[in-house]
C-alpha cells in the first residue's frame, strides 16, 4: 500500500513494485485517505511519503506513529526527500520500520530487500543517516577496524548477518565473527539472538556518543 501525494511518483512506484512481484492493494494521495486504506486493507507494509497533505509537514511520520499503535504488526516504510536523523532513529527504534531517501527506489535490489525486511519485522535505515551517525560517534568507534566499521554501518541499516555477508561478499561465518567482536569492543554484550534488538542497541550506542560529541 502506498501513500504519496505526487501522482507521478505514486504511479511509478506502483508499477515498479508490481513488476518485481509485489501486490499493491491501494495507493492514496494524502494522510487521512492513507490511514483509512491501511485500516481497511491491513497490508504487510505501508510505504508513506513523509511530507504529504493536508499539512505538508511531517504528516507521514505522524501517520506512521498512528499505524504503529493501531496495527503493531504492519511494517511502515517512510520515504523522504532529505535526511532527518533524529526522527528516523526514534521511529526505527520501534521496529517494523524503515526510513529511506526517495532516490533509493532506483536501486531496485537494495530497495526491495529493505521492503521485505521491514515487512517481516526488521528495520531499514538509510545509509545516509547511518553515515551521519557514524561520523558523529567516530571517537567512540576508534577501537574498530575499517572492516568492522563497514559491518557496523550495515548492522545499523538493519541488515541481517546474511544480508551483510551478501553485501560485503563474505561468508556468514566471517560476518558473525565480526559482529561478536564489534559488540564486545563496544561493550554491548551478546544480543545477537534478536536481530532487531541488535539494531536498536547499535543505534542507541551511536546516538548517545553523537550527543556526547555534540556537547
Amino acid at each position, binding site marked *: 500500500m502506498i501513500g504519496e501525494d*505526487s501522482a*507521478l511518483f505514486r504511479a511509478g*512506484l506502483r*508499477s515498479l513494485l508490481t513488476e518485481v512481484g509485489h501486490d499493491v492493494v491501494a495507493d492514496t494521495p494524502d494522510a487521512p485517505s492513507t490511514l483509512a486504506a491501511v485500516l481497511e486493507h491491513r497490508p504487510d507494509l505501508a510505504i508513506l511519503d513523509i511530507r504529504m497533505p493536508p499539512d505538508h509537514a511531517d504528516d507521514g511520520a505522524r501517520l506512521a506513529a498512528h499505524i504503529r499503535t493501531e496495527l503493531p504488526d504492519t511494517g511502515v516504510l517512510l520515504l523522504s*526527500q*532529505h535526511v532527518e536523523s533524529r526522527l528516523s532513529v526514534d521511529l526505527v527504534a520501534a521496529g517494523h520500520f524503515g526510513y529511506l531517501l526517495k532516490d533509493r*527506489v532506483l536501486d531496485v535490489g537494495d530497495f526491495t530487500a529493505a521492503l521485505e525486511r521491514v515487512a517481516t519485522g526488521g528495520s531499514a535505515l538509510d545509509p545516509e543517516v547511518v553515515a551521519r551517525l557514524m561520523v558523529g560517534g567516530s571517537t567512540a568507534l576508534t577501537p574498530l577496524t575499517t572492516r568492522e566499521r563497514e559491518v557496523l554501518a550495515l548492522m545499523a541499516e538493519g541488515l541481517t548477518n546474511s544480508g551483510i555477508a551478501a553485501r560485503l561478499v563474505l561468508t556468514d561465518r566471517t560476518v558473525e565473527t565480526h559482529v561478536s567482536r564489534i559488540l564486545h569492543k563496544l561493550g554491548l554484550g551478546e544480543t545477537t539472538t534478536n536481530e532487531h534488538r541488535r539494531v536498536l542497541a547499535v543505534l542507541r550506542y551511536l546516538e548517545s556518543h553523537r550527543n556526547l560529541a555534540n556537547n
Partner: protein
Amino acid sequence: MPWARRTTFLLWGVSVALLALTVVAVRDLAEPAGTWIVGGTVLASLVPFAAGWLATRHDPANWVGTWLTAAGTNILLQMAHGNWADALAAAPSDLPGSAALLNLTQGVWMGWFVPFAMVLLLFPDGRPADRRARRTVVALLGSVVAFNALLAVAPGPLMPPLEDWPRPFGVHWVGYGSIPALLVFYGSLVMAALATRRRYRAASDEVARARLRWMFLTCLTVPATILLCWTGYLLTGTPVVALGGLIAMNFAIPAATLVAMLRHELYDVDRAVVAATVYPLLAFGVVAAHAGLSAALALALGAGSTVPAVLATVVVVVLLLPARALLLRVLGARLHPRRARGVDALRVLVGEVHAGTAQPERLEPVLQEALRDPGLRVGYRRPGRPMPVDVDGEPVPGDGVPIRLSGSDIGVIVPGPGHPRVPADVAREAALLAESVRLRGELSQALVEVDASRERLLRAGYEERRRLEMDLHDGAQQRLVSLGMRLRVAQHQVASGGSVALDPLVDDAVEELALAVRELREIAHGLRPSCLDDGLGPALESLSRSSALPLHVSYSGGDLPDHVSVTAYYVASEGVTNAVKHSGARSVALDVRRTDDGLHVAVHDDGAGGARIAGGTGLAMLHDRVRALGGRLSVTDRQPAGTSLVAVIPCGS
C-alpha cells in the same frame, strides 16, 4: 479698592496738576526752548508711569507699583518746582509765590531718590521684609520731612535762584540739624540697598532669588548714573548730562523693576548683572590706572610731553583684556554662582570626553549635580521626532533654554519644577556635547535599524532557500526519480522476457526531462530573473506582457550595474504584484528613470491605496533590499485614489 491703587490714581491727579503748573510757568518765562523741555520730560515720565501702572494692575494691593508711579510724579514735580522758581526769579512776574512753601521745599531734589529707595525696600511683595527694613522706611521718610523742615530755619542763604526771598520762619541754629537729617537720609538709601541684599540671602526659592537679582541690577543703575553724571560734569562742565543721567535712571529702574516683577524668567539677568558690574569697574580702573601711570611716568621721566601718556596707554591696553577676563571670572563666580558652576562642570566633562574617560551622555547628570537641580532634563532634537527626546528616546516635555549650534536648535535644557531657567551660557557651553550626544544617538539608532534589516534580510534569505528546496524536492527531483523508476520497470520487463514499446517510452522520458529542465529554469529565475540578461528595460517589458493588468512602462534607465537592475526589477515586480493582488487597481503605471541621485523606480496604481511598509510584509522586505544598497523606498497614497511605490536606488556615477 486697595489703598495702594487709590494712591496711584491720586498720584496721577497730582501729576496732571503739576504739569499744568509747569505749563503756566514756562509760558510766563516765554522761553522758546521751554516747550521742548516740557514735552521731553513728560515723555520721560511716561516710562515710570507705565511701569507703575503695569505693576499696580498686576497686583493692585502692592505698593511697589504706587512708588514706581511716584517716580513719574517726581519728574513732573521737579520740573514744576524748577520752572516755577525760575519764573518767580525772572522779574517782573505775575505768578503767585509763597515764601513759606519755598522755604519748606528746599530738599525737593530728594524726590529723585525716595521712590526708588522705597521700591528697593518694598520689593517684591509691597511690604518691608523685616524690622530693620521697617525702621529704614521710617528713617527715610522722616529724614526727608526733618531735612526740609530744618532747612527752612537754617542760617545762610536760600537755594538759587531765589536767594533773596524772605525767611518767614526766621533763622535759628536748630536749622543746623538739617545736616544730621541729611546724613540719616543717605544712610537710609544705603540701608535700602542692603535690604535687597538681606532679602536675597534669606530667599530659599531660586525663582525669588532670580527676581532679586534683577533688583540688584536695578540698584547698580544708581552708581552707574552717578558715574555718568561725574563724567558729564568733568567733560562738559554743565548739569545737562547729570539731568540726562537722572532721567536715564528713571528709565532703567522702572524697566528693570517691572521685568523683575513680571518677566524675570525672560532674560538672563545674571549675565546683565555681571556685565553691569564688570564694565563700570573696568572703566573706572582704566581711567584711574591711566591717570596714575601718566603721573608716575611723568615724574620718573621728567618729561611733560606725550611719551608718558603713550606709554601709559600701551600698558593699560595690554592689561585691559586679561583684567576683563579676571574680573568676569571672579565676579561671575560671586555674583552668578550657578552659571560659574555649570560652565566649570561642563568644561571638566568636555576634558574627560576628550580624554576618553567619560561619555558625552553624562551631560544631564553633570548638569543636575552642578546646578543642584535633580529634576533637570536635557532633551535632544532628533529628525522625525516632534519633541526633544532624552538619551533613551523618551520625550522631554516642558519649557527650557534651547541649546543652539550654528543657528539651529539641537536640544533643550528643562529645569526641574520650582527651579529657575538654566543660564544661557551653560546652554552655550553644552552645545558641542549635546551635538555629539545627538549624533551618537542617531548613529546607534541607525545601527539598530541596520541590525534589524540585516536580520530580516538573512531570514528572508533562509525563507527563500526553504521555498527553493521545496520547489526542487517536489518538482524536478520527484520528476527525475519517477523517470528513473519507469526506466527500471522497462528494464525489468525486458529482462524478464517481456517486450517494451521503445518509442513511446523514450518520448515520454524526454518529455519528462524537458519538464524537469523547465522547472529547474523557473527555480533559477527565482534566484536571479534570467530575463535581466538583456537589461532592465526588456525585463520590464516582459513583466508588462505577463501582467494581469494593463501595465504602462516608461523606461529610461540606460546601462545599470547588475545589483541595481536586480533590485529595481524586484521593486517593479513586487509593486505590480501588490497592485494586482491587493489594491483592486484597473491599471498600473511603471516609471523607471535615471536621475542625479540614482535610479527612480515608481509604481503608480489607481486602486484602493492604504498600503504601508510594515514588518513582515513583502514591502518591508523590499524596503530592506533597497536600503541595503543605500537607497530609500516610500509608499504613499495618491489623490484621488491609488498608491505610489517609489524607490530611489543609488547607482554610482
